[in-house]
């Protein structure tokens, strides 16, 4: 008697289900480039790039291939659920490949084909768009990828991170999942997206969240408490740095960055103060990256003789 499989996964339907699109991307990257499929970082952050799997792992000589979904918080983009495209919370799909493989563009295009985008039916274009994050002391060259005129992915070759040259360079792909799904499903309003194949929509999952969180971001959040949180995160970052645990310090920098975004949304930071707060966040993030790179360097050099941080 042969053992019947307990479970056979159903065929994915990425063109009619948001979650199937994500699962297809997981399947794809899991099967390519030896990627580890990670879960989201459990902190509020403005972009997938802040995930330590991207920032910190872009440093150092070791190969690193990972893919994950990262929920992103952009408090000022909230529209109380009334705008068909803008959300204060949305998902990015990140792929980081280090060193950047020579067929990275082909791999990326295959992943688009896997979720149902035929490049002979749709006009795919690589349009210059370089990336820079002063906060992270990072920059890279690349493109925004257009599908019939719509930006669906940010494609970057990291050249520097935390103020250090990337040795080697990592390729980073950031897919805008909602946009991509809206395109594939032919939907004009994000809340009309089919979340799964069983009739649940994106609106059912997130519309009420958008309403309440927009209100909280713009109107309710206690600004004294936020200023306090910012100061505490800043202090804790310094504390962690002093104690030689730069990953913990980095988390506090991420926290401070998000609290700053909330303060922005509450409109309590003047133009003059804005630059100063950004400078403080930048200082935390860069110090953490630097401390991490410096802490890891002996280990990296042991594994890769001749490699140097600078």
């Amino acid at each position, binding site marked *: 008697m042969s053992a019947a499989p307990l479970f056979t996964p159903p065929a994915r339907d990425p063109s009619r289900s948001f979650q199937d699109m994500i699962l297809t991307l997981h399947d794809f990257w899991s099967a390519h480039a030896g990627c580890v499929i990670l879960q989201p970082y459990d902190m509020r952050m403005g972009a997938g790039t802040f995930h330590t799997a991207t920032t910190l792992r872009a440093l150092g*000589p070791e190969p690193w291939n990972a893919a994950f979904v990262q929920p992103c918080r952009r408090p000022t983009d909230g529209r109380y659920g009334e705008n068909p*495209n803008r959300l204060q919370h949305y998902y990015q799909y990140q792929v980081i490949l280090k*060193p*950047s*493989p*020579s067929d990275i*563009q082909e791999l990326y*295009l295959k992943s688009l084909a896997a979720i149902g985008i*035929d*490049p*002979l*039916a*749709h*006009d*795919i*274009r*690589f*349009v*210059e768009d*370089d990336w820079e994050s002063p906060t992270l002391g990072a920059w*890279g*060259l*690349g*493109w925004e990828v257009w*599908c*019939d*005129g*719509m930006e669906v992915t940010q494609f970057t*070759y990291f*050249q520097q991170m935390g103020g250090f*040259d*990337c*040795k*080697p*360079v990592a*390729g980073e792909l950031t897919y805008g999942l909602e946009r991509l799904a809206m*395109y594939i499903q032919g939907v*004009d309003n994000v809340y009309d997206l089919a979340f799964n194949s069983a009739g649940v929509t994106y609106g059912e999952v997130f519309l009420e969240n958008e309403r309440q969180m927009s209100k909280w971001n713009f109107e309710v959040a206690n600004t004294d408490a936020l200023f306090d949180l910012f100061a505490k995160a800043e202090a804790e970052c310094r504390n962690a740095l002093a104690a030689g645990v730069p990953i913990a310090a980095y988390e506090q920098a991420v926290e401070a960055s998000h609290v700053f975004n909330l303060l922005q949304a509450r409109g309590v930071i*003047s*133009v003059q103060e804005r630059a100063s707060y950004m400078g403080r966040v930048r200082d935390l993030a860069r110090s953490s990256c630097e401390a991490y790179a410096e802490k890891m360097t002996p280990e990296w050099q042991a594994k*890769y003789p001749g*490699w140097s941080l600078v």
Partner: protein
Amino acid sequence: MADFLLELRCEEIPARMQAGARVELEKLFRKQLDADGISAEDLTIWSTPRRLALIARGLPLETEATSVEVKGPRVGAPDQAINGFLGRYLAKQEELVERNGIYFLERLAAGRPISRVLQEAVETLVRDFSWPKSMRWGEASVSTDSLRWVRPLSGIVALLDGDVLECDVPGVPVGRETYGHRFHSSGPIVLHHADKAHYLSLLAAEKVIVDHDSRAAIIREGAAKVAADAGLMLVADEGLVIENAGLTEWPVPLLGRFDEGFLDVPPEVIQLTARVNQKYFVCEDAQGKLANAFVCTANIAPIDAAVVVDGNRKVLAARLSDARFFWEQDQKTPLAEHAKKLARITFHEKLGTVADKVERVALMARGLCEEGVVAGDPDLAEQAARLAKADLVTEMVGEFPELQGLMGGYYAAKEGLPQEVAEAIRDHYKPVGQGDDVPTAPLSVAVSLADKLDTIACFFAIDEAPTGSKDPFALRRAALGVIRLIVENDLRVSLKGLITCAWSYAAFVDMVNEIRRLQSGTTGPLLLSHVGRLQPHLGFAAKSDLVSYRQVDGKVDNWSFSAMPWHQIANSIAPTIDPAPVIGFFLDRLKVQQREAGVRHDLIDAVFALGGEHNLVRLLARVHALQAFVTTEDGANLLAGYKRAANILKKEDWRGIEGEISLTGEEDPLSGVDDPDLAPVIAAKMAERHAAAEHLSYTPEPAEKALIDALDAAAPRAAEAVAAERFSDAMAALATLRAPIDRFFEEVTVNAEEANKRAARLTLLARFRDAVHRVADFSRIEG
């Protein structure tokens, strides 16, 4: 002869960098050939987003043999060393040439085969290629010394006639295989020889049009055609043509429609949204109105064009929704309210906020109307100036800075402000470039002039004048704008007066700010006066009853301005800065601008050097008349006569009758001038001399008499004509002097032996010189 094909394939090159890359490729390749003393009969460079290609035809098979001097041992070195050297070069002792104690040997280096030259050329140019931004990639990037390129360099084709050129570019395969269109072609294409037609046709078969000009033509003509097919006219945009040609290997223009409802948004906004964000063309209907259509350029021959068009339509709709949102949102706040936010924007750290600038410009725009420089309503001019910068803080201008002014004009019109106010807001940045129209409506002229003059005057006041190629605040462009506004609108106004005025207003606004700070108990630097030049003089203002305030415990608690109009208060503040450098700056700009119109810069100097002419319109009229005159035969001869007269006067050190005072015999010629006892004596002597000069003490020679008569007639005529601004008449008067002066020089000896004749003749020449001088300083005229 040999032909060479080089193709450098990489991931998508930014469209804006491709033209520069073609130039760079050609430059580096030619440089390599030049270094070997060879050249190609014909060089072609092409680019697509994914490749740079070069085809060189008619290359020599090898370089010329060259003579090389080899350095040997020094003279007197041991025989062993000398023989060793000779042996190495198979040379004989007598071939050695001795120079500076060292032996040299002439040797002929054989020509190098072209393959070697090209190999080096390829390796060098890949290494030395300069991109605006370049990057590292892949495994090799573990070292920062790895190859850099604009995006990863993926492969090279290098064919010398039919053979693959051997060359080594680290990590990049070199061969005869290339690739076609990213989606329409698969697998490598094998190239057999370095031939244009072969290369173009094989790639075209794989849907790559290598020649960028051909792609541009397809887009230009194709876009126009799809528009015409829809009964529309494409709005031509060559920049977009080039950009789309740089984004595609197989361009396919497609026309789509957007919701007509968006046409409520100003057409400039729609065009800019389509152009900047999406790189689409727009179209017009038969009446020249913007149509609800766009043309996008796909990089594929799509299975179903409608699908691609529909996707693009959706993206454009989302963009236009944003634009419409801004358009509607901005209108919810009146411009006057928007303008308040300008107090938060720094114009320049030493010049205050944009609100401060607006204050200055408003005063000046009003002043220009009240003084009658511009025939506009002062209240409306001030209103327009106060609102002119308000659109800078609107959402729309935040998104599209190039719409500044234009949006303000639209919003003003929507608010129901007077049409001329809306137009002045819209046009006050004009003229922006050389080809740009100059405003002619009085309010627009007033605000535009005030805005630019304020910028120039204030930056000069804080020592931020342009130097060399550095002009960070675009003052040269502003000055050119001022010149064109004045000249093209025939504004009879003194430039010096305008600049002084701008400083007065600046000082005044400073003063008002200071009073406000005193009133609120805050402190802050005076913006302009802290450089120590503009003194707004709070005390002065109070003394002159312009303002009154009371100070209690060091705090001002009550202040008020007099009932005088503000601009009059401002006018009564005299700035202490020397306007000469600003005037000089304007004069230089004027010369540059007029040079293009064929006006000689030396003639501008000749008129300006007379001093006191700060009215540009009058100055130019005089310059034009002068130019017309000096290019005639009479003019050229008169100029020669003038120079001769001036030279004689200079050589004789003739200082006129007063100058002859030194003949008293005193060592210091002026020693007696201030002596009260001597004064009447000197005065009497001078009167005698003047009388003598008027009535010659001898009978003049005929030529001398003729010049005197001609001068008596011409000098007052010329002076009168200048005063009446009839400059051609002034020149005509001068022309009558030409024959007499020529004759005078031919027939009369100036340096006569008799002192009275010499003095009279020198005086006559000085009179001639001065008469000419009253029209223009001929000594500044070249030739």
